[in-house]
Structures are given as C-alpha cells and as structure tokens.
C-alpha cells in the first residue's frame, strides 16, 4: 500500500504534540481514575507532562526549521521561551497543590487547563503566521477565562472572569479585524510574505504610490489586541480587578506567562514582518511603554491590598519588558528574554508567599497581614524581601540586571527619554516595594496569620529565591542562551 506523506516535518511541532497530548490524556485520566479529594495526583501527572514537553525540546536543540508551509517554526528563540514557559507552569502547579484544597476549590480540571494554557504559550512562541498567532491567543484567553473563574462561587472570582471574558472578546475582535486589513493590503497572513511585500513596495515606491496604509491600520489594530493581553496602558483597565479576583496561583501564572507569550508573538511579528516600517510603529510602542511604566507604578503607590499592588506592579513591569522590544536590536531581544526569566521567577515567588499567607474565607492581602512577619517567620520574610527588592530592581538581584539590560538596550537605540521615564518610575516603585519590607521587619504583628507552609511550597519559594540571587550574580548562565536565540531570530 502506498501512503503518500506530504512534505511536513512533524519534528517541528513535537513540543506542541507532547503538551497537548498530555493535556488531553490528563483530562481523561483525571475523569476516570483520580478520585475526588485526591486531585494532587493529577497535579503530579501534569508536572510529568511538562517534563516530557521539556524533554521533547532536547532533540530539537539547535534546529532551525519551519514547517507546515512556513506556519510553524522551531528555533533557539522558541525553545528558550519554551523552557521559561515550562518553568512558569511547573511553579504554578506546585504552588497550587496545597492552595486549591485549602480554598475548597480543588477540581481535577485545573491542571489540564494549565497545560492547555502552557501549550498555547508554546504555540505563540513558535508560530510565524497571523492566523496561528490568533489561534494561540484565543486558546490562551479561553483557558484563562475558565481559570480566572475557578474560585466559583466566590463572587470576586466570577466577576473577574466575566470582565476578562467581555473585554477579551472585544480584543479578539480587534485582532481579527487587524488581520483582515493586513490581508487586504498584502494578500497573505504569512509573516515572511508580508516582509517580502513590504520590501518590494519600498523598492518600487515613488511619490505616486502611497505607502502601505491599510497594513499600518491593521497593524495598529493588532497592536491594540496585544496591548490588551500584555496589559499596556491604556488597555490595562481590566488588570487590577481580574488579578485580584482570580485564584492567586492563576494570577501568578497570568501575570508572567501571558505577558511572555504575547510579547514573544509580537516580537515575531515586528522582527519578521515589520522591520521596514519601523518608523511607524516604534514611536507608538514607545509611548505605550512610557504610559505603562508611569500608570502602573504610580497606581501601585495608592494600593493597600498587596495582591492589587502586585497587579499594578505587573502592569508597570510590562512597560519595562516592552522596552526590550522597542529597542529593535539584538540587545533588546536578549534583554527581553532575561527580563522575562527574572521577572517570572521573582513574581511567582512573591505570589507564592502571598499564597502561604492566604487563609480560606479571609484574604491575607492587606498590608497588615505582613506586619511583623519578620519576627514570626524570618525565613519567609527574608524571601519576600528578596522578591520585593528584585521587583524594585535593587542589586544584586536578577530583577536589577533585567532592568539594567532593557535600559541599556533602549539607550543604545537612541530612546534616552524612555530610559529616563523608566529610571524615574523605578524610583517611584521602590516606595511601595519597600513599604512591605518595612511592614515585615519594623512593625509589630497586627493580626495572627498562620502561614500554611507545606513542604512543596516552601521548596518552591526557596528555589525561586535562590534562582533570583543566582541570576543576579551570574547572568551569563542565561545570557549565552539568549544571544543564541537572537541569532536564530536573525536579529
């Protein structure tokens, strides 16, 4: 029998096959074999699925190939991001293991949903086609809508899910309309083809031929949709409410994973398709980044709810990460990758500390709950202080180096004013990060909060704190990888 296989390299989508396959299998295993009340097993199996996904990346290492008519690509950039995404998902699952039963919201679906969301991150990091990027964004959004409302019947969680769904659907509309306009101009949704179209247009351009107007309008609409997902000002309105209402592990997952995946796709779009029209989009993105840094950090100053404060701070950090994209240079992409890793570890660690302090029924999110933590739980307080210092960008933490790299990249690209705003807003940010440290070490305990320190979460916090310090002292451990990723991008 003659089976005609089309010329498709299935190896390219191996990580995707593994992660979606394990998510589907996990859904069924959980349904048939895992008894209710013992859903931790599902969590452990999900960790195994993540491990396999990571292993699937090993034979692809160093490969640079695209497949499915140029829709999917595998390169060092994608594989490096995959590693970061797997770390994010693994930490999220570990910090959920005890949190979900304690809050009375333990259901097996949580872990397959995290796997599906992580799969969409991987998809976003690998796609070079607007339709596929849209698919990734939708998959990411739909799983996150469900995860946001996972604390049902807590009202704030339902409210958050509803807000996220309504605004997210709106953003999806912008994205599709943008793709339609880009297709109208270029007759393709493939990023490489769009680049070819633009180079041809530029070479044949005379005064009589107008520029790619439709493409620019479409690109602006796509940028709006991305700004919504990354939470760039003025499309950040949903962020504090959704981050506050969602179950804390989901907030942690969203605040780092979504930003990383959406920015990875945005980087593919701007570096592959739109480098010739830099003059049009770089100023727009620069202004968005500036507004994000200002609003995020100034907004956080006024918050007394720690979870809400971290939500505003994550808006501010989105601004800093975007600096790496705006720089439009090899150093910029490197800085983006390093910042993403540093910020992910730090933020997940900080949220893990909040989870430890969070009790069922009452939320330990007010500043008072941190008062005197230094006396009662010195190690926990030291770890939290380290995460706060890293978020503020104080040496010798990874957060400091991340900030330094993005500022340096933006400075090299002649965006001095943006760096100035970044430095000023970082100074503002130190105020509210230090406030928590002051509460922990210089105030007497106000309320008696029993920290739920289980072994898994204690180790997670310790490892995250260790990694934050490690990358603060030895950034070259990761920078080499980031440099090779940039070469893969052709940056």
């Amino acid at each position, binding site marked *: *029998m*003659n*089976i*005609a*296989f*089309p010329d498709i390299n299935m190896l390219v989508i191996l990580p995707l096959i593994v992660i979606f396959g394990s998510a*589907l299998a996990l*859904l*069924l295993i959980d*349904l*048939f074999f895992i008894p209710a009340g013992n859903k931790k097993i599902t969590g452990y199996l999900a960790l195994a699925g993540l491990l396999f996904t990571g292993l699937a990346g090993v034979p692809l290492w160093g490969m640079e190939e695209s497949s499915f008519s140029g829709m999917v690509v595998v390169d060092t950039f994608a594989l490096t991001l995959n590693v970061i995404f797997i770390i994010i998902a693994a930490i999220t699952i570990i910090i959920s293991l005890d949190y979900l039963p304690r809050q009375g919201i333990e259901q097996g679906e949580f872990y397959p949903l995290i796997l599906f969301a992580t799969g969409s991150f991987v998809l976003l990091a690998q796609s070079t086609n607007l339709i596929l990027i849209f698919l990734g964004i939708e998959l990411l959004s739909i799983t996150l809508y469900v995860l946001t409302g996972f604390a049902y019947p807590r009202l704030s969680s339902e409210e958050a899910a509803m807000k996220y769904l309504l605004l997210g659907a709106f953003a999806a509309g912008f994205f599709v309309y943008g793709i339609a306009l880009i297709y109208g101009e270029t007759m393709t949704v493939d990023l490489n083809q769009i680049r070819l179209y633009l180079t041809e247009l530029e070479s044949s351009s005379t005064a009589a031929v107008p520029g790619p107007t439709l493409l620019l309008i479409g690109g602006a609409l796509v940028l709006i949709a991305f700004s919504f997902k990354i939470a760039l000002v003025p499309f950040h309105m949903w962020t504090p409410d959704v981050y506050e209402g969602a179950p804390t592990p989901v907030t942690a997952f969203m605040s780092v994973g979504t930003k990383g995946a959406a920015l990875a796709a945005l980087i593919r779009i701007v570096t592959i398709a739109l480098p010739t029209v830099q003059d049009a989009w770089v100023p727009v993105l620069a202004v968005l980044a500036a507004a994000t840094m200002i609003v995020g950090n100034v907004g956080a100053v006024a918050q007394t709810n720690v979870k809400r404060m971290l939500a505003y701070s994550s808006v501010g950090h989105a601004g800093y990460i975007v600096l790496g994209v705006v720089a439009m240079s090899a150093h910029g992409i490197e800085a983006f990758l390093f910042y993403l890793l540093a910020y992910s570890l730090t933020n997940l660690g900080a949220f893990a500390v909040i989870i430890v302090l969070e009790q069922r029924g009452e939320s330990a999110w007010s500043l008072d709950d941190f008062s005197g933590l230094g006396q009662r739980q010195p190690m926990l307080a030291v770890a939290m202080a380290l995460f706060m210092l890293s978020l503020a960008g104080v040496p010798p933490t990874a957060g400091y180096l991340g900030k330094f790299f993005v500022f340096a990249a933006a400075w090299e690209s002649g965006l001095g004013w943006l760096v100035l705003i970044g430095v000023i807003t970082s100074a503002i940010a130190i105020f509210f990060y230090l406030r928590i440290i002051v509460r922990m070490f210089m105030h007497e305990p106000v309320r008696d909060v029993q920290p739920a320190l289980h072994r898994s979460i204690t180790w997670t916090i310790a490892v995250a704190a260790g990694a934050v310090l490690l990358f603060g002292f030895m950034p070259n451990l990761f920078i080499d990888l980031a440099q090779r990723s940039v070469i893969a991008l052709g940056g």
Partner: protein
Amino acid sequence: MLEAYLPIFVLFLFALFVAVFVISFSALLGPQKPGERKLKPYESGMEPIGQAIRRFPVKFHVVAMLFILFDIEVVFFLPYALVFRELSVYGLAVMGVFFLILVVGFVYEWKKGALQWE
C-alpha cells in the same frame, strides 16, 4: 448578455403579481374574524409579550455547547469528504487524530453528566 436574465425578470414579475393578488383579494373578499391566537405573530412558540429578562433553564447552554462540538466536526468533515480520495491513508490518519480530540471532549461531557436532562 442581459437578455439571458429575461426569464428571471419574468419570474420576478410573476411572483410580485401572485403576492399582490393573493394578499389583496383575500383581504377584500375573505371573512374577517380576528381572535387572540390569530393576531399573534407566531401561532406557536414563546409568548411574544412579557419581561425581556426572565429565567430559563441553564441546561440549554449545555445543549449549545454540545451543538458547537458537533457543528465544528461537520464543518471540518464536509470538505474532507470531497477530497478524501486524493488524501488517501494520510488524510484518514489526520482526520482520525482530529476525531480523537473531539471524542475526548465528548467523553468528558458524557462522564460529567452533561447529557442527563433531569
């Protein structure tokens, strides 16, 4: 060129004539005995007048989701039916994988009791 459309034009005129003829003559000659049921826009179905916001069984949303599952399936299977000879065994394998993913969703729904009405 345009004369090719003449029959359609004739049909259009004929339809217009029949419609006007039937409605006007039944209005002129027919007996007029209006009743509550006769004056409703639809003879059967939901009550047309009432509160705009009212409760309805949430079970219907499960039906809607089930519908999407099978609807998508049909949307993808129909084009496949047209070309499945050219795609041969490879196409069958790909559609098998697609079907498997759908079945996972269906099994999940079934096991969760979404198909039980009461």
